[in-house]
């Protein structure tokens, strides 16, 4: 009898230990709640890609509809803070916000709810917030921009080869949003991709000073086409540029979504973000009770960036093979986008750079390449390289 009693006690203790261990390990899958704060709704491409991530994550982890709470059309203002604390009060264990300007408001809420994880896309302040529950994430979109540049460069070179244009006419136009590191990093990657395939290429950049303004983007593309640009690239969120390219007969490399519907004969491909890997990873971390990276930035290696469908009617011969080859090379780390042997700044090859804005004193260049997005998830490459002019 005594033996039986002690056995029961031991069993009880073991059981209680496992229960304690389980609660320390994470949140039960049927208890977790996930909150999202979106700048737009499904009608806006950037938010739509995050919405897809929320849905895919829900499927992958088997969560029910009422475990996902989404707040749409939340501006970059006090409204974001209100939305965040509201989600926290509804019992969310992890909260995502998708717009750059949400960051301060999201992290202000994070300070009040230390047991909840707050993840912010495209931001820069998680590491310096002094909090342990703030996280930034971004995709290594520069990898996809580089390869989309390769697609454009092959097209440009094929036009030189068949005599449509001369080598010194190979000028690229780029519709940029703001003169900001994210855009500079992106257009430099794009240009390096173009020039890898078309060595005589030069590029000019026109800023619209807006993330999404179809009319301005169209106008910018038109002005660059009038200025002699033979290929258009973009870092702005609408299809504006493609609507200028189709009638002018100028190939376009888009962003976010395929431009084939708006430029059926001229759209080559678009670089695009895939937020599914991160959102799934972060929520799974909460379920498992493991730490989420303070800064997360992944590219082809995790499937976090991609190219949209290549337009077979418009691309140069051999493009598909080249794209597949380079995607593999970037994913396995044999190809680095910001290889310092491929560009110069002020006529000089860069061997050292430790005055990067926000990371003064850190050496960004080693092993022959600029280490983009390694110190933080958001892009830091802000050097203006030779061959590109900003207007």
């Amino acid at each position: 009898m005594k033996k039986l009693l002690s056995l029961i006690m031991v069993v009880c203790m073991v059981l209680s230990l496992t229960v304690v261990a389980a609660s320390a390990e994470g949140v039960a899958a049927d208890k977790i709640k996930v909150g999202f704060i979106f700048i737009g709704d499904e009608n806006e491409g950037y938010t739509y890609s995050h919405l897809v991530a929320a849905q895919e994550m829900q499927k992958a982890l088997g969560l029910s509809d009422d475990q996902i709470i989404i707040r749409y059309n939340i501006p970059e203002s006090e409204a974001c803070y209100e939305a965040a604390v509201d989600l926290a009060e509804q019992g969310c264990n992890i909260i995502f916000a998708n717009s750059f300007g949400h960051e301060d408001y999201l992290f202000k809420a994070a300070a009040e709810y230390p047991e909840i994880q707050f993840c912010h896309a495209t931001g820069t302040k998680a590491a310096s917030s002094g909090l342990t529950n703030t996280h930034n994430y971004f995709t290594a979109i520069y990898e996809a921009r580089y390869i989309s540049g390769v697609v454009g460069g092959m097209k440009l070179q094929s036009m030189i080869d068949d005599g449509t244009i001369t080598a010194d006419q190979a000028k690229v136009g780029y519709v940029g949003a703001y003169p900001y590191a994210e855009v500079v990093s992106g257009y430099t990657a794009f240009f390096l991709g173009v020039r890898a395939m078309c060595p005589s290429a030069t590029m000019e950049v026109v800023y619209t000073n807006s993330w999404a303004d179809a009319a301005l983007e169209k106008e910018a593309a038109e002005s660059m086409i009038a200025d002699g640009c033979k290929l258009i690239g973009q870092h702005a969120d609408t299809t504006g540029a493609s609507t200028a390219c189709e009638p002018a007969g100028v190939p376009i490399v888009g962003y976010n979504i395929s431009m084939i519907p708006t430029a059926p004969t001229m759209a080559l491909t678009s670089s695009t973000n895939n937020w599914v890997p991160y959102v799934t990873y972060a929520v799974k971390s909460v379920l498992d009770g493991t730490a989420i990276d303070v800064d997360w930035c992944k590219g082809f290696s995790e499937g976090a960036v991609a190219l949209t469908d290549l337009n077979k009617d418009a691309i140069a011969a051999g493009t598909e093979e080249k794209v597949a080859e380079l995607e593999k090379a970037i994913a396995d780390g044999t190809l680095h986008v910001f290889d310092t042997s491929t560009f110069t700044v002020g006529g000089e090859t860069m061997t050292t750079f430790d005055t990067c804005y926000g990371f003064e004193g850190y050496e960004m260049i080693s092993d022959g390449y600029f280490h983009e997005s390694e110190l933080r998830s958001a892009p830091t490459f802000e050097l203006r390289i030779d061959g590109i002019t900003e207007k």
Partner: protein
Amino acid sequence: MSATTVKEPWVHVVKRDRMTVGKSALIHLAGVVLALIICALVIFMLTGLNPIDVYAGIWDGALGTSRRTWVTLRDSAILLCIGFAITPAFRMRFWNIGAEGQVLVGAMATAAVMIYGANWPSWALYTLMPIAGVLAGALWGLIPAVFKAKWNTNETLFTLMLNYVAMQAVTYAIIFWENPKGSNSVGLINMQSEAGWLPSIADNKYLLTIFVVLVIMVLLYGYMKYTKQGYEISVVGESENTARYAGINVKRVIIRTMALSGALAGVAGFLLVSGAGHTISTSVADGRGFTAIVVAWLGKLNPFAMLVVAFFLVFMQRGSIQIASQFGLNDSASEILTGIILFCVLGCEFFINYRLEFRHEEEAVKA
């Protein structure tokens, strides 16, 4: 035969005498009920959802938790404050549709003090912020008033255009204040020290804003109703010639009133920056300057009626966030509902001012 019998129209519209408050309230209530029924039909036909659930969602979004209730009240207070700002100008029949810009410059001046005065003693900061906001707003109101008084320029266009000037000024200021550099956004000002953020009262950070607006409400009501200056505003509004005949200096009244109007908008700008957002951007006013015109007009410049209208508009807007999340109905859905309700409520005005007389009634009277 045809020449002599003029066919009497089926229905006559006849102007009513003044209606009792109770009766007009009843008509408004009927309008709202009708609106809710139409909305229910629209919701059901377009989405197949149960309208009652959607109404419950709206209610839940605006007043579902104590925090949501406070935010709804705070946002109503700020909208109301802007409504109060345009009230004296509208009473004077000076069509100030520049509240948006006046709020914006008030917000910008407040933000400037917050940014440059981050290390000042807090009494200096808290004194200078509202002063800066009020002065900037007043200045923005004075400009069109002076032009109107001196050269009789069109104030509607002038105040409207100044909104865009204010937006450009803010865009320009952001270049100097943006954080991080190049991001084109200022972010939270003094995020760590919270210098210049309106303090909480009894652990409630929404209360002070609401309190300030209620004080303004009482003061403005007294000013408009019981002071000589308030009376002058009404007289100028009724007829400038009468005012002149009565010895009122019309130019002075116009300038003084618009300065007041702008100053109150400046207070709203101050509250938006110091009390709510703690940042500055071109969307700080977020169209409130225009929504406030709806508030003032629907409330017939009566502060208590305006309070109801402002609360209703904010209620619907905050409810929309909930129904978007709960039923996947985006912003436009609640705008449609708000539109239907406003249409019905405005339609009430017709039945309050006029009555319909049908033909057979007339015949019966003749016989």
